[in-house]
């Protein structure tokens, strides 16, 4: 039958009059969404994480392997000479104290039968078991967090934003939500059963953050926004010329509700709460900062980011005269090639770095996508050591081994990635009577003179096999890496030749050294304390983080004698040294227990004979019986000659400073538990 417009119209009229049911829409939802959408496009202060949202799949995977970033930091503590460099760049900070803020405390491998073996299961919402589809996100958690926000006078902010950031070794994306006219009440949903750091910001008020918030709890969080925050004023200059750098971006890393931020200024979110732009005269002011210790960062095109650490702010306090010196940016470039030498276009190359200032771990990254010829370039990096990862677009698994490189300010480092016929490869196997733990990795560290690339990491299969390709020739130390990078065990050495495949088997014995660490004051587990194992000759054997019950374990230990240094840096606890641990074939020593006492802190300033600060001087700390204590990977003075040293056990210490072959006279110190002492060490020519 042919169409009849009159019939059609009549039918439509009847249908709409009699069969149309309006779709129900909640007016409140509509109103709020409109406000949010309009604010998104019109309000420059609208709080959104555009860059981080776009990159969240990449960052989630980078988080998986960035636990291995700690390896560069940790391996530096264990080596001599040139290998003593750590991931921390000395010029960035007055060196951080020892220890780690790892909260997962993964320490014991699966299959050992330890009560804490379950901790090694990867967090499902960070490391998916199967590769997710392009563009999709992991399934959200099921728990909620509720609370109220208010000012000191009892009123509530009209609008405020709440971020929930998981407290984890691995970086995570914050959950953020804005609230308006809610009488200060907030509720965040879709969280997992973990602890979170909650950030709250209302326009014009200082940022507030609360740690250890547990979703799913019956208790509602009560968050008080103080009336006054702190202010930091200063200048940003070119480190080489002293010229001001107008237009640089200055942020407080401490008040950034994120665990990872881009290194480049242009990639920093425009809506970070604590952010300002340097004026034409080079000056800047960051106000309404939270009370506490801040790390301030400046970034500008053509420069690497630079940091000033340990800025302690009180309510209403002002810190003047902070000078941030920007060095020329470093770059990493190269080409990514496949196994047949073909160019790999449109893959992502990430350069990521972990720093450990006094205010807490921070991570930054640079990124590039390869061109049609497979080339990439990542710019505006600060001098220091980075992990390079390569991902296919939309994939959450690195395509190749992790590569660890060190770049200098103003230089461009050529780093070919992927396969290369001119380089060597290693096919290895861990031979162990015990099951290989899930997520075990092998890390290789080059020996000999310092090189731009000094270590790399590859996964280990369940049968103990692993393969690493594109390895420069040389002798490499091999470490087993467990607990997503929070535990490392020395396995041996291997020599790699160019253009050759090397095969090697590494024994991973069944014996282990294990124990627990507690607070001496009350016997509570010292979760997060760091245990470092040395052979009798002082050689580094392993390093791990104590878990939930303060427990640690070093598996795969060969027969011999060992000593343990237990460090309680982040816990403000002093160290303990346990000597004479004996391992025989088939016999592991009895579990040990370390009791850590409260410790003091000292700020050491290294100066020359004229009183001028010395940059890059190293510190040597010896305890009351003259033993060398390695409280941190590398204690060196920063740009102002300062070195904050934490976790000094009460007792007598002898401190030396050294640089360029010079060594200071010994300085004796007895730290107090409360407050921070100051010590001036003179290093003369």
């Amino acid at each position, binding site marked *: 039958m042919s169409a009849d417009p009159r019939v059609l119209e009549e039918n439509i009229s009847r249908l709409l009059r009699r069969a*149309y049911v309006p779709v129900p829409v909640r007016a409140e939802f509509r109103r709020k969404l409109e406000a949010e959408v309009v604010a998104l496009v019109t309000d420059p202060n609208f709080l959104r994480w555009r860059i981080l949202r776009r990159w969240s799949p990449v960052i989630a995977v980078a988080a998986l392997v960035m636990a291995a970033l700690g390896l560069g930091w940790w391996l530096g503590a264990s080596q001599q000479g040139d290998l003593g460099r750590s991931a921390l760049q000395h010029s960035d900070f007055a060196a951080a104290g020892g220890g780690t803020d790892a909260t997962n405390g993964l320490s014991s491998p699966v299959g050992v039968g330890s009560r804490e073996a379950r901790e090694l299961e990867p967090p499902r919402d960070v490391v998916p078991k199967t590769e997710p589809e392009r563009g*999709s996100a992991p399934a959200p958690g099921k728990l909620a967090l509720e609370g109220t926000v208010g000012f000191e006078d009892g009123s509530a902010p009209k609008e405020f934003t709440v971020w929930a950031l998981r407290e984890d070794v691995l970086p995570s994306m914050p959950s953020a939500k804005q609230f308006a006219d809610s009488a200060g009440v907030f509720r965040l949903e879709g969280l997992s059963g973990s602890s979170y750091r909650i950030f709250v910001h209302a326009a014009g008020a200082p940022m507030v953050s609360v740690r250890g918030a547990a979703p799913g709890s019956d208790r509602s969080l009560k968050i008080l926004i103080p009336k006054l925050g702190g202010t930091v004023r200063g200048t940003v200059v070119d480190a080489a010329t002293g010229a001001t750098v107008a237009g640089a971006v200055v942020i407080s890393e401490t008040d950034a509700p994120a665990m990872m931020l881009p290194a480049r200024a242009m990639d920093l979110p425009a809506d970070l709460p604590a952010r300002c732009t340097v004026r034409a005269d080079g000056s800047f002011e960051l106000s309404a900062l939270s009370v506490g210790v801040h790390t301030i960062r400046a970034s500008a095109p053509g420069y690497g980011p630079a940091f000033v650490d340990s800025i302690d702010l009180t309510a209403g306090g002002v810190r003047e005269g902070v000078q941030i010196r920007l060095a020329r940016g470093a770059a990493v470039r190269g080409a990514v090639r496949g196994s047949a030498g073909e160019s790999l276009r449109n893959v992502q190359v990430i350069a990521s770095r972990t720093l450990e200032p006094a205010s807490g771990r921070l991570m930054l990254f640079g990124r590039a996508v390869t061109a049609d010829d497979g080339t990439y370039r990542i710019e505006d990096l600060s001098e220091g050591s980075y992990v390079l990862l390569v991902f296919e677009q939309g994939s959450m698994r690195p395509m190749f081994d992790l590569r660890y490189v060190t770049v200098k300010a103003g230089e461009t480092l050529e780093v070919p990635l992927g396969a290369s016929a001119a380089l060597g490869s290693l096919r290895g196997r861990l031979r162990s009577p015990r099951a290989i733990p899930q997520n075990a990795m092998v890390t290789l560290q080059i020996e000999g003179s310092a090189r731009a690339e000094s270590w790399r990491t590859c996964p280990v299969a369940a049968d103990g096999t692993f393969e690493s390709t594109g390895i420069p020739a040389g002798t490499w130390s091999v470490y087993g890496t467990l607990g997503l990078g929070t535990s490392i065990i020395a396995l041996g050495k291997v020599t790699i030749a160019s253009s050759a495949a090397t095969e090697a088997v590494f024994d991973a014995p069944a014996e282990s050294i294990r124990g627990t660490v507690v607070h001496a004051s009350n016997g509570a587990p010292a979760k997060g304390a760091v245990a470092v194992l040395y052979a009798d000759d002082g050689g580094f054997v392993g390093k791990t983080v104590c878990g939930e019950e303060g427990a640690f374990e070093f598996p795969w230990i060969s027969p011999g004698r060992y000593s343990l240094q237990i460090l309680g840096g982040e816990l403000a606890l002093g160290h303990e040294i346990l000597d004479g641990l004996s391992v025989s074939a088939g016999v592991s020593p009895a579990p040990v227990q370390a009791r850590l006492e409260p410790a003091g802190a000292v700020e050491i300033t290294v100066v020359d004979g004229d009183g001028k600060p010395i940059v890059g001087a190293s510190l040597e700390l010896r305890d009351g019986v003259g033993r060398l204590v390695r409280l941190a990977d590398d204690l060196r003075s920063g740009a102002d000659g300062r070195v904050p040293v934490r976790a000094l056990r009460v007792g007598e210490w002898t401190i030396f400073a050294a640089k360029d072959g010079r060594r200071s006279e010994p300085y004796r110190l007895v730290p107090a538990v409360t407050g921070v002492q100051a010590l001036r060490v003179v290093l003369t020519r």
Partner: protein
Amino acid sequence: MRVLDRPNPVQRPETDELRLRTLRGDREAAEQLFREHFDSLYDFVYFRVGRDLHLAEQIVQESMMTGFENLKTFEGRSSLHTWLCGIAKNKIRAYRRTRRPVPIEDILEDAGGEIDAILSQIEREPLPDSVLQRRETQELVGATLSSLPPEYRRVLIAKYLEERSVAEIASASGKSEKATESMLTRARVAFGKVFELLAKRRGELE
């Protein structure tokens, strides 16, 4: 005259001008652009997520935010409504992989690619009263409207639900009566074709 519980703006400035003003940070333009597209996007999503209110809000919120955040990338190769619906479709697909879909969503998903192709065809028989009273018909009406371009949806509702005259509709939209009449004709044809497609897919109408 039926009282609708939602606004149905007929008067609308040129969408692309609104988009450009929005990109320049014009708050009023942003509000108007939102209001122009919210209802149609919401309807589109609602029928494609099993009429799950909570899920519809989630998808609409994500789609709107994604759309407005990427407004500058809109190239004008389709209408803004189609573009926003495309964003919503992707989000719905991602969600639906985790659950078993209910029939109307299946039909809409399957029909999605063909709706546009049908808009130029006409075939209709008078519908029996009994059909009009069926819940399934109500679903089809809502689903059909949700699949139409916003301007078609607006004029059909203005004409047949709000019972406005062509002159009133033309005056409110700033168009001529002839242009409005032409728009109504096209809207009716489109409605007919989409409705027929969905009905055939479900196999319950003669």
